[in-house]
């Protein structure tokens, strides 16, 4: 089944959020079967930080939190 347009937009939004704030790198090449994807790992990291239920999936609470206005502190390396 193709994802609905809404779902795709949310997935893209979440991906760009994780890239920006959790250093998610592009997923290129095949993933190991059965392994946890980098996106899921980053999602879990974010859910842990915000004391959300750690599901590793883009649930409503996680998406809601991603959409709140926030600070985007740049990478410390740049400052160094």
């Amino acid at each position, binding site marked *: 089944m193709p994802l609905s347009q809404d779902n795709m937009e949310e997935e893209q939004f979440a991906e760009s959020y994780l890239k920006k704030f959790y250093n998610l790198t592009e997923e290129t090449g095949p993933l190991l079967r059965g392994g946890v994807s980098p996106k899921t790992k980053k999602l879990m990291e974010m859910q842990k930080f915000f004391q*959300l*239920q750690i599901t590793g999936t883009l649930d409503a609470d996680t998406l809601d939190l991603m959409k709140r206005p*926030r600070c*985007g*502190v*740049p990478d410390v390396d740049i*400052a*160094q």
Partner: protein
Amino acid sequence: FSTFGNNLKWQTNTLTYRIENYTPDMSQAEVDYSIEKALQVWAKVTPLKFTRIYSGIADIMISFGSRDHGDFYPFDGPDGTLAHAFAPSSGIGGDAHFDEDEKFTFRSNTGYVLFMVAAHEFGHSLGLSHSDDPGALMYPHYSYGNPDTFILPRDDVKGIQSLYGGNEEPIAPGPTAPTTPDACDSTMVLDAVATLRGEMLFFKDRFLWRHSQQSSTPQQTLIANIWSSAPDNIDAAFESLESDQVFLFKGSRVWAFSGYDLQANYPKSITSFGLPRTVKKVDAALYEPQSRKIFFFVGKNYYSYDDVRKTMDKGFPKRVDETFSGMTSQVTAALQHRGFTYLYSGPYMHEYSLRSGRLYRVLRNNYFLPC
């Protein structure tokens, strides 16, 4: 709190700042005041001193820009990212950039209060990273704060003092730094408990925990993050299944919310529920879904309001211990769950059968609010 690590901090306590440009959203005087006040938030609790310069390179360069603004971290238009700042170091280190596409305000709760955003960013400029304490200034999400009454929360004070130490100069005693309530604190007395569309809400100070039966971990957040116009430190709360609204009580006023929205003509007087004018505040409120009655606990008495007929029941107030055996202390919060009535008194929760008034168990907060 957290810091950037590697002892990333300024090696001097005397820092300079420069405001490079202004936002058209506010007057220049308001921007100057907001920036100065935001720096003073940190200066008050550390030996740091900030001096403004008007030309040349300052330690903390402050500017407003939109989209690509020259640091390879483009802003994203309205909302989303509001600002960013760089950790202490030479060059771009310490600088704070504000997204000009936001609507910044001086102290209104429409738009983003520049003081609050700046105070957070300057935390980064001084060496603090994001905190996972939802009450901390360094929590990564914006929440409204009034520049005139803002007090730096305890978590941020601990964070900045771990880098620079405390302020050795005596400062006039003032309000103490607020701490974030801890669900593991067995002495905590909740302000109010209510349900919301299947979730349980536990209120304490300016925070609430949301807990759903499907989740093992409650989520703590500021009340203002759910309802920006709701008061802090509420007295009582309940959810009406009749009107699908949550009611929050503070003093002689009541606020009604449907979802995230404050309902028209609210806040109202608590007399709108038929409570007598002599009642100045409600200690706890309980919604009984079977009968659609609302019980208002006031001191040692309680009132019963019929949510269907919208009138106060006759024969009230009654003494609480007439209906709930042994409940002679003040009821501080109340909840109905799976046919049982839970009356909170201090850090204890009393489980009753409403039908018989029989007390089954005395429990702790963590029965519903896991530590």
